[in-house]
């Protein structure tokens, strides 16, 4: 605990004339649930996309520290980032919709499988043994997320809440060291949000996975996160514990308007 795991330093990203991120710096400590909040369009998802290698920021660095090595993520391909143990979910569910829940989760094991074309074509012992080994890991995740019923269902046919859970499961199947969750509770009712929050806490506590969480529901954020970073118009305007952040005038201004800030309403 307490070791810096992800250090974002001075990251700037622009699309033409639009600055999505301007000199963003933040530090995620190992074992934390680190929330990133901010109004729509503040650059939260862009930040995750830079971290997982999907976007290349024009300036700055994102260092991912592991016990034995440090990797610069801004110069790493997305599939290499995943192989380092950085898994993510997407804001608008991006599952493999024609595949079953099981196959989706098995894809989470992709980086941990060895893929030999010859063995695959012939269905040799190693290919088969590997399928069985990884199946056991995947079954544990199915148990954890309570989706046993849907194991063989094509994900496209499942309800929204279950799909969100499957997407978390796919990320977990990677056995990540760092989990990037992009609005895992968006569009859910209170009960589903509670379930999802419980899963995130379980993963964080039982498996010791560091989580970066983008979320709009302030109650959830304040309840479960250890640290909070606030973005507005691509800039960091607040960073600290949930209490520190919710008392910060700049944050209140961004969320409630400048009048509220001067009156000291929190």
């Amino acid at each position: 605990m307490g070791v810096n795991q992800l250090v974002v330093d001075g990251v700037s990203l622009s699309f033409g004339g639009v600055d999505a991120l301007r000199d963003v710096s933040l530090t995620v400590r190992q074992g934390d649930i680190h929330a990133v909040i901010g109004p729509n369009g503040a650059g939260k998802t862009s930040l995750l996309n830079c971290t997982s290698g999907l976007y290349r920021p024009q300036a700055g660095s994102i260092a991912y520290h592991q016990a034995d090595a440090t990797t610069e993520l801004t110069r790493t391909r997305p599939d290499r980032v995943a192989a380092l143990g950085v898994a993510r979910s997407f804001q608008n569910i991006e599952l493999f919709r024609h595949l079953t829940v099981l196959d989706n989760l098995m894809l989470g094991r992709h980086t941990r499988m060895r893929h030999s074309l010859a063995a695959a074509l012939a269905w040799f012992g190693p290919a088969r043994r590997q399928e069985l080994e990884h199946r056991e890991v995947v079954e544990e995740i199915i148990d954890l997320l309570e989706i046993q019923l849907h194991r063989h269902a094509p994900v496209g046919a499942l309800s929204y809440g279950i799909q969100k859970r499957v997407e978390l499961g796919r990320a977990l199947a990677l056995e990540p060291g760092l989990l990037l969750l992009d609005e895992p509770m968006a569009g859910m009712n209170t009960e589903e949000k509670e379930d999802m929050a419980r899963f995130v806490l379980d993963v964080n506590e039982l498996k010791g996975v560091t989580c970066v969480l983008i979320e709009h529901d302030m109650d959830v954020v304040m309840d479960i996160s250890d640290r909070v970073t606030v973005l507005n118009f691509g800039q960091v305007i607040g960073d600290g514990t949930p209490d520190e952040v919710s008392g910060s005038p700049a944050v209140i201004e961004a969320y409630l308007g400048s009048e509220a800030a001067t009156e000291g309403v929190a």
Partner: protein
Amino acid sequence: MTPATGVFHRTYGSELRLRTTTAAQVRLVLAVVALVVAPFVITPYWMTVAIQVGIAAIGALGLNILTGFTGQISLGHGGFLAVGAYTSALLVTRLGLPTGVTVLAAIVVTAAVGALFGLPALRLKGLYLAIATLAAQQIILWVVRNTTWLTGGTGSVFVDYPTIAGFRFDNDFRWYWVVLACAAVATMVARNLFRVGIGRAFMAIRDQDIAAEAIGVNLTRYKVLAFAVSSGFAGLAGALTAHWTQIVTWERFTLSVSILYLAMIIVGGLSSIVGSLMGAAFMIIVPALLTQGAQSLEGSFLSRQLPAVELFVFGLVIVLFLIFEPRGLARMWQRTKDYLRLWPFRY
């Protein structure tokens, strides 16, 4: 996809088996018996058709791996068949290599050419990729028609029937077994591919390529691999065509052939192994039936307008499938199996 009702497994291993019910095993035995008995009872005309079906099935499996399973549309399949046919035929006629070796070489060379023409897929999707693969088709045909040192400027290569281990494959009865064996191996290989991680990665790219990349699938490697594997199948089909017909001409591998193969996998069922086989059989047997019908009705409208009727039926079949059963013959077959399994109950 969804497991059959009332079929339970006690181990993950038993779930991974291809045939888990008695009915499935009985069906396999029946199919094998039918395929073994067929050459002894069918007429020479239908023997030719059967061999064509076998070769087309190999090609259709290849295209389905690329287009159905990996989601990379290709209009270049005819071109890849040509690469296989010319490679094998030229290696026999120019270098005098044994046919078994040249067929293997054809698979490897076509896979390499396919991988090369698959490179645009790293940047292009959908319609744009269709145009890029169309370019592959045209480039390959241009090369075989216009490089005099390769094909003598006529685009044709003649090759004698092969003799393997003192056994001369010079009639359709013998070729039937060769093609059957090749098609059986191709089917097994394709089936195996989608039981493991590589096949899953292909399907992940089809469904959601960005998510596939974010979960660790190397898009470059797997897209190129899909093109290579698919073209390998085309190479085998092309090489078999060359040695069976004893002549390789570019007219056999035009754009309309690429479209015929797309029609096979649409009619058969995209991303279905058994669908590839059914689609190939369907698209070869229907014109064969029309031809037979035209011969027996000498002087009728059908026999006078056979080419036009064939085209019309070709179009009609595709339209009807797209409207009524977009998932093709494979889906109809699945429904039939379900019906029979549950009979006399509805569900």
